[in-house]
Structures are given as structure tokens and as C-alpha cells.
């Protein structure tokens, strides 16, 4: 059976890289005595897929992974069991047994929500200036950028990939002391279209005529979505609610 696990990655665990996180879960699941299904061969390893790698330095309350098990207990019991084996700033918040034949998290992912804050102590626009300029930025007919890959450079339009934006006022910052809430972004994520919040911020800074300093921004991922819409109509649902 395949199980989808939702988890948080906060505090100092934001410095743990993607591959290290994968190894972390392999060991955590073994500590929690999950009935893991192993790959065959001389170096058997558990079958774990993380939905969308989170960049080093980003925090999240909406991460997902799929893991293959031979058997398991009730979700509530499993969540407790896993959390007992985890570090305090990586913790499981949901546990769903996927129906037979479900696509894995990496394959269905379509969008991600981010909350961007400002770190204190850096020069940046005033909040009102930022809002005016961001509206102007978004209201362009298109936001053309050059996307560089290892092989080539190609021109693309960012605008249709920014699904939504919203200025933040009272965003709960309990885990981000000293950060000033700025903006919420919903961005295309996944194998078809994938843009990172850093790219939007960098492009915005260029538009606003200010130099881009990545350390100004603290980025928190809120949720990952799959698209269950028919045809061209988008219908985004969180990865743990896709089969309800």
C-alpha cells in the first residue's frame, strides 16, 4: 500500500537539504517501526518519494511524501508513532492511505502556496511602495523573462504561472519571529510548469529598479496542490484531499 504523509519543516530544519531529508525519513520510519516495503537487491532501501523538493532556507507547513508499506495501523496512531521518532521541527500532520492505483505525489503536483516575509534589518521598499509596485508588476500584459537551463536559454511569460497573489497583514508569524509579512503567492509547481518564489521576487526587484538580495526574504511554503479540474479549468486541491 502507498501512504501519503503531510509534514512540516520549520525552525533550523530549514537548513537540511533535500537528499538529507530523504535519508532522515528513511531512518525516522525505521525508528518508528513502520512496516516498510524494501526494494530488492543487495542494498535494499525503503520506497519513499518526496512530492516537491523544498529549497534550503525555506520553511514549510505543507510538505508531502509517499511511502510504500506492507501494513499499517489507524492514521491517528501512525501519526503519533512517527512523531515520537522525529526531531521537534519536522513533524507529521496527516497520514492518508491512498486508493489502489493513485498517482504518486510527484506526478500530480500542480501548484504551491508561499508566504513571503521580510527579514528585519535589511533595506527594502516600504510596505505601501511594495504594494503599489507589485500591482504594477502584475498588471503588465505579460512578464517576460529569460529562463536559463543547463542546455539552453528560453524566453517565457511568468504571468500565467503566478496563479494568485495577496498582500499579507496578519499572517501568523509565531514561528518566524522578527519577520515582517509581505505577500502570499500561489505558483505553478510540478513537472509541466515550475516556478520558484525566488524567481518571482528577483523579477519583481528588477521591475522595481532595486537590487535583488535573496537574504531580504524569508519564504514559507504553506500548501501543495494537485489539479483535479476537467480540461483547461483549474481545480486545485491540497495533496492530502485529492480523494475525498
Amino acid at each position, binding site marked *: 500500500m502507498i501512504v501519503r504523509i503531510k509534514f512540516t519543516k520549520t525552525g533550523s530544519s530549514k*537548513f537540511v537539504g533535500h537528499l*538529507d531529508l530523504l535519508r532522515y525519513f528513511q531512518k525516522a520510519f*525505521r525508528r518508528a517501526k513502520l512496516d516498510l516495503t524494501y526494494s530488492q537487491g*543487495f*542494498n535494499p532501501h*525503503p520506497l519513499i518519494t518526496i512530492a516537491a523538493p523544498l529549497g534550503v532556507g525555506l520553511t514549510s507547513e505543507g510538505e508531502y511524501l509517499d511511502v510504500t508499506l506492507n501494513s499499517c495501523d489507524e492514521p491517528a496512531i501512525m501519526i503519533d508513532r512517527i512523531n515520537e521518532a522525529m526531531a521537534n521541527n519536522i513533524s507529521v500532520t496527516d497520514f492518508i492511505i491512498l486508493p489502489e492505483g493513485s498517482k504518486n505525489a510527484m506526478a500530480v503536483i500542480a501548484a504551491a502556496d508561499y508566504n513571503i516575509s521580510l527579514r528585519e534589518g535589511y533595506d527594502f521598499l516600504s510596505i505601501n511602495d511594495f504594494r503599489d509596485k507589485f500591482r504594477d508588476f502584475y498588471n503588465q500584459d505579460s512578464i517576460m523573462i529569460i529562463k536559463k537551463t543547463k542546455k539552453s536559454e528560453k524566453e517565457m511569460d511568468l504571468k500565467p504561472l503566478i496563479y494568485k497573489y495577496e498582500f499579507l497583514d496578519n499572517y501568523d508569524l509565531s514561528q518566524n519571529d522578527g519577520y515582517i509579512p509581505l505577500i502570499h503567492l500561489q505558483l505553478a509547481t510540478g513537472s509541466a510548469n515550475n516556478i520558484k518564489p525566488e524567481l518571482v521576487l528577483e523579477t519583481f526587484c528588477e521591475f522595481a529598479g532595486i537590487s535583488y538580495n535573496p*537574504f531580504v526574504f524569508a519564504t514559507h511554503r504553506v500548501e501543495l496542490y494537485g489539479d483535479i479540474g476537467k480540461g483547461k479549468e483549474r481545480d486545485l486541491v491540497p495533496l492530502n484531499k485529492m480523494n475525498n
Partner: protein
Amino acid sequence: MNKLALSDEILLSVDKPARYIGNEINMVKKDPSKVDIRFAMCFPDVYEIGMSHLGIQILYDMFNKREDVYCERLYSPWVDLDKLMREKNIPLFALESQDPVKDFDFLGFTIQYEMCYTNILQVLDLSHISLFSKDRREEDPIVIGGGPCTYNPEPIADFIDLFYLGEGEAVYNELFDIYKENKKNGGTRLEFLEKAASIDGIYVPAFYDVTYNEDKTIKSFTKNNPAAKDKVKRVVEMDMSNTYYPTKPIVPYVQVTQDRVVLEIQRGCIRGCRFCQAGIVYRPLRERSLDFLKDIAGQMLKNTGHEEISLSSLSSSDYSQLQELVYYLIDEFGSKGVNISLPSLRIDAFALDVMSKVQDIKKSSLTFAPEAGTQRLRDVINKGLTEEEILNGARDAFIGGWNKVKLYFMLGLPTENFDDVEGIANLADKIAREYYDLPKENRKGRVNINVSTSYFVPKPFTPFQWSAMETVDNYLEKQRFLKGKIDEQLNRKSIRYSWHDAETSIIEGIFARGDRRVGKAIYDAYKSGCIYDSWSEHFDFDKWLKAFADNDISAEFYANRDRDFDEILPWDFIDVGVTKEFLWRDYNRSLKEKTTINCAAGCANCGAKVFGGGICFDRQGGQVQ
């Protein structure tokens, strides 16, 4: 969120920031304000290397079992962070509390290899602690050195307040009790060091003076403080099955070198190879019981979630219950996705059977360490491995399906001649012939034989402590000669040869038998920018040459010179149990190409019996002869 010593901006600017955040699984958390003693335990190399070291994990567990002690860890910041910390004047911190090390009671270094000496200075410097012991103030931490390199502590004697000679399990508790008592009574740093010097195993370099002869050898080594002992005894743990062992080792986030459970099955070695310091200074052989090992293996796997377990010891094939242990681990944990990582075993039917069970034969290779190319030279070094054993082992393995062989040798061994060097090429070729003599249907393509040579460095407390190290020119000549001889072999296309560079080895040779005067060169090399000398990309030989030249330190004197029995050696004040008389006797046997019996077969009266246990007693009814 736990507070971090470094800002996000710094952490996001350096490679692998998770090295510096602590908070790993099984990390010990205590309230620093509620303990009497704060101990910072340092492995002076990068996190991934240091976290792989079992000794620190043992001491970390042992110290933290005391309610009045909080032991934390630190490692050398990598060069990128080193630069930022200097620029921004950020004091080095311990991982657990993220507090500056300079506020701790102790800063302890485990010193595993000579090429980390500049990293000790780096850690002191970044911690804002004076590099020289004599410059430290009352409020600075007491700086301790321990580990194998302390069997000649003299090159770094000026930087360390006290050395701990021996196994950590033995007297650390006593040392802490004395420290606590002294602190409570308002005693000074000097008063603590004097009290500490009364404990066996503790060496306070400042309490001894050294004078030199005109020929640069040591004239006298005398104590200048009545609290100091004439001879400092190495301390040992004799009950290996009833002592500290970390059942909840820390599980790092970053992938470290030893990303697995490490099970130390025994300490010491019966073999007595004459080039090997560990084989002498960890005597006598002390096994841990099978029941103890089974129990802690299970606990460690459960508490870490590691998917691999490896056995650790100097010579695992000599562990009396190895078969039972290995088959137990395979049966008990193999089905639960745990890999068993085998140490280098003597190749016999048992080894081939377990290797075929736990390794992919197509990918794994056989390892032999003949160390020398001829029987004559193997007798000189007392390496009890014959050509027949190697060829038989190889043949059996080839029949079993293996076709990769690794062979380890040393160049520059005492009495070595060009016939011995050529013997390496011949032995490699004979192994290849064993393979090609098999019927074609039993072979899987070509055999791969990897020959590698290192540059022999004579070490203190070995029979070769009096021997000259080969000069760099002669070593390089032998290396070229061997390359030529390998290229002349019938099966040259199946043999690959690689060698260790000469530059770090010659420096190691100077440090290994250096005295206090060498410390000035280490200081100068560090000041000129040397750190991470064991990392080839950071090693700068020219800076070392300059530091040695400026301080009148020469390889001719420290490395390439034979010594007399009467010469005062810098480490003579240490009593490791094995006597100088035995070592001299064994050195002279080696020159006559005579081997010495191993501890399992009989007693050569090396002196280690003085510890009153281990193999000396287990197999001889406890009789001291």
C-alpha cells in the same frame, strides 16, 4: 525555534549549513545553567569526519550520564565559514547550546592523526582562546588533548593544558570530581592542573622542562613542579562488557562518512605488527562479550534507524566469537533491511561465506594487506601473512565468483631492498595467474588487481621507533621502480598501481617523533594560512617547508635518522604498559628477520600484563611471569 549562533544569511552562504545547527536526533539537551561543568568536545576536522568517530560518541554518552556535566560537540568549521567567522569576529560555538566555547569549563580535542594539528589551532583561534597554554587566563577553558597522537604529545605540548593518556572510560570521572571540588573552593587554574597531575594518565606539559644537547637530541626531561609524576601511566578500561557504550548515538542530518551503527567488538590486537602503533598502545587485547554486543547492536539499530551496522576493531578475524556474532547479525537484522558491513577479514571459508551473503560479489572486492612484497620483509615487520595464504585465499575467492582484489603495501620499511619492492609486482602477478589458471567457464572476464603503496612512517611506541624513515628521494625512486616492474609483468593489464604522495607523509614523519621545538613550526604554518592539511586541496607543502626552515626543523634529524637505545626519546616519560626493553628486543629481532609470537599463541613478555587482564590473563590463568 532553537536559537542559532549564526544568522540565516551566514548559514545560507556556506556549504552544508546543517553541519552547524545541531539538534540532531539523540542529541543530549540540558539546561547549561543547571550543571557544574560544561565540556566542549572537539574533533578538529570537518563535521562529516568528526561525527563518524566512535570515541567521541562513547565519551559524549559517558559524560552526559553525569547530571553535573553537560558535554557538547564542535568540529572545525569548513573553510568557507572559517573565513566568514574571522571577518565578522564571530566566536566559535558548540552545537548543542550554540553558546561560545570560550565560556566552557573544558575544551577537549580528540587527536586522531598528525595532519590535524593546524586545525586544533584554528579551533582555539576561532574560539577566541589563546593558542599558547601559557597565555591563557583564569576564565579560559582548560584545553585537553586525547587520542592516539598523544602517545607523542610533544609537538603540540605548548598548545594544550593537559593531555589525557589512555582510554576515556578510565579516569574522566575522577578528573571532573577534582575540577568541581577545586571550583567550589575557589581554586585557581594552576591548582586544578596540579591536582589533575596527580591522577594516572594526566600529563601537564607545563610541569616539565626539556633541555637539549648540541647535536639537537634531548639532554634532559625533568619535572619543574612537585605535583607532576616522573612517569605518566596510560590508563585503560579492563572490563569491556560492563562499561559505557552509547546505545543512542546521534544521527546526523548531513550524510557523514560513517553513516551507520559502529560496533566496537574488542580493543587491542594480538598481532604485534612492528610498524603498527595501535597494535602496541592498545594492548592488551580485550574482547567484549557476545551477549553484550548482541544487546547493544539491537539497541543502537532501534534508536538510530540506521540501515547498516559495521564491526570495528584492529583485527576482527581474531575475535573469538566472530562467526556467532556475524551470523547472529545477519539472521536477526538482515531480514529487516539492515546491511552488515564487514571489516577486512582474513580470507578463509567463513569470510567467503559471509561475504557472499552480505555483499554483491560482482561489485565487492577482496582485500589483502601483505604490507611487504617478500617473506623476508614480512618477517622483518612481523606480519604473519604468507604468500601461500594469500594465493589460497585468492583462489578460493575466484572460484566463489570474485574477480576484484585490493592489495595494500608500504614502501620504505626498515631493511627494505629492491628485491622486496620487486616482490610486490611479482605477488600481484601470481595472484592474477591464480585467476587465469581457472577453467575459462569459471572466470568472469578479466581480473582486477589494485596495488597501492603508502609511505612508511615510523611511530613512537613501536619497535621501529628507533628506525630511520626512508628519505623522500629514495621513496620516490622505489615507487618509480615498482611502477616499472609492474609494467614488466605478464598480467600487467590486469594490475593497477596507485601510491600515496610523499609530501604529507614526510611531515607526518616529523610530527610523529617530533619534540617541543616542532610546535613553533606548527604555529608558523598555521599563521601563514595552513589548515585542513589532511585535505589535499588545502594542503600547501611550500608553506610547511618555509615554517620548518624558519625554525631549524629538518626531516634529516626528526624523520630520516636512526636512533640509539640510549637516546632520550621525547615520549619516554609515558608508560604505555609495553616496555621500552621489549620494544628494543623486538626491534633487534626484526633486524635478524625473526618473528615474534602473537598474544594468542604465547606471551612475549611485552609488559602489557601489568594491566592485570585481557588476553594475557584470559588464556594463561592470570599468572604474571
